[in-house]
């Protein structure tokens, strides 16, 4: 990534208010406690066009923002958008490993309204609907997820299923799943029972 020092300095000043903030999206995979969504039957308010089938908007728990980082406009309102691809001085904790040779921040984050994301079409989507953004590339996963097959399931098999956002389990900037420490191995069967009286 290219570096443009002047702009960076500006950004540093503007971002002092949220110093140390990090978008630790999806850190600690799978740990967030999902909520059981109410029946999500309302037609999608953000439906792209009449021609396309209307997809239900799914109820999800709040996106996993790190403390104090949202709304992004708190800082960004004061910063004129710079659409040039470059290495940032802010948000340095973000190490983009998500098709990084082809992609950077503003492919997903909206430069005009930092509090939302945008699709390839330019349509803006809320963070609570970020799955539509992910689904643009990961169509098969998205379809599976909507069917309740991709992703963690909670709630009721015969009622309301609990859905999580992609970002609850996958850090959008580094979506590969982290390895975990396994729980203890079972005890090997032993000729002498430890538990026996």
């Amino acid at each position, binding site marked *: 990534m290219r570096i443009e020092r002047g702009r960076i300095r500006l950004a540093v000043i503007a971002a002092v208010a949220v110093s140390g903030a990090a978008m630790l999206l999806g850190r600690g995979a799978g740990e967030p406690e999902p909520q059981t969504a109410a029946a999500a039957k309302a037609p999608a308010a953000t439906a792209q066009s009449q021609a396309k089938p209307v997809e239900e908007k799914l109820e999800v728990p709040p996106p996993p923002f790190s403390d104090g980082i949202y709304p992004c406009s708190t800082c960004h309102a004061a910063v004129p958008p710079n659409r040039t691809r470059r290495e940032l001085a802010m948000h340095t904790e973000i190490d983009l490993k998500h098709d990084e040779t082809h992609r950077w921040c503003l492919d997903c984050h909206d430069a005009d309204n930092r509090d939302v994301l945008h699709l390839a079409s330019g349509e803006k989507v809320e963070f609570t609907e970020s799955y539509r953004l992910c689904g643009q590339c990961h169509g098969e996963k998205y379809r*599976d997820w909507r069917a*309740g097959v991709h992703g963690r399931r909670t709630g009721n098999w015969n009622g309301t299923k609990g859905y999580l956002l992609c970002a609850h389990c996958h850090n959008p900037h580094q979506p590969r799943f982290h390895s975990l420490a396994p729980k203890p*191995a079972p*005890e090997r069967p032993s000729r002498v029972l430890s538990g026996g009286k």
Partner: protein
Amino acid sequence: MLNQRPEAGCGSEGCGSGGCGTQSGGSHGTGNQGCGSAGQGDYLGDPSRRLFNIAAVGAVASMALNTACGPKRLYEAPKDKLRALIAEEEKKYTAEYGKTVKVSDAGPMPGVQFAYALDISRCIGCRRCVYACVDENNQSRDPQIHWIKVNQMDKDKGVDFSHADPYYNPEQVPQEGHFYVPVACQQCEDPPCVKVCPTGATWKEKDGIVVIDYDWCIGCRYCMAACPYGARHFNWAEPKIAPSELNPNMHYLGNRPRTKGVVEKCTFCIQRSREGRYPACVEVCPVGARKFGNLLDASSEIRYIIEHKRILVLKEELNTVPRFFYFYAT
């Protein structure tokens, strides 16, 4: 196949009028006589028969109380009798563990056939499911009983259990070159374990869950020899659970405490699934590899998986027809 056992008879006549009612311990001379003779016809293959037979015997009645009101009666007996029995159990457990225990008697829901699917391409072998299951289902902590066994397999060898290692213990999972196959009860359509039980203490419920009556099992372990999946576990000593760790939400055929000398196994968390909830292992799985639902519901995850994914069942050639599908989502 769903209902291999005739269910004639016992219900109201046997248990209701004379038999199980004796659970308060009295002698029901005439009533029992009636029951006994009424049942002389055919007891073969009819587990309900035994229930009122037992009940018919005043002498052993006190010993047989719980048993007498065992599995079949659970759904066939008049509701008030059943509640009385369950209340007794609840009282016993509440006293024993010092916390309010609830024992459910929920029967199978009409139009529901449970099935399970596990995504082999996602499972990372972290064993969260194993311990969530232990906590939910009150397995003995010492000696240790796990209903779920997570096998680490070699990618070069495929699903060949002669290369399975359930005792893997690296710092981090998944390990390079391996995949993971957790195995618990496969809730077979045609369960070999049920076929061999000499006392009929285990059977398949109408919603497909294979259950055990812990009060009727004699502990011969023939079912364990018959099970192709190592799903059945025996209480080699008196099971131990700290009262603080006891899950007080129980089902009569599920996670109520067992005694030494009986067999136990996964019941798809019958105490949860019959309330419409997902089993504990499904909810805890951090990678979302575990799926559960109703086979008869065309919009269920399970149907979606069967219709869209590559699936396999373990030891298909044995014709046990598992209700537990392994699949590859990617």
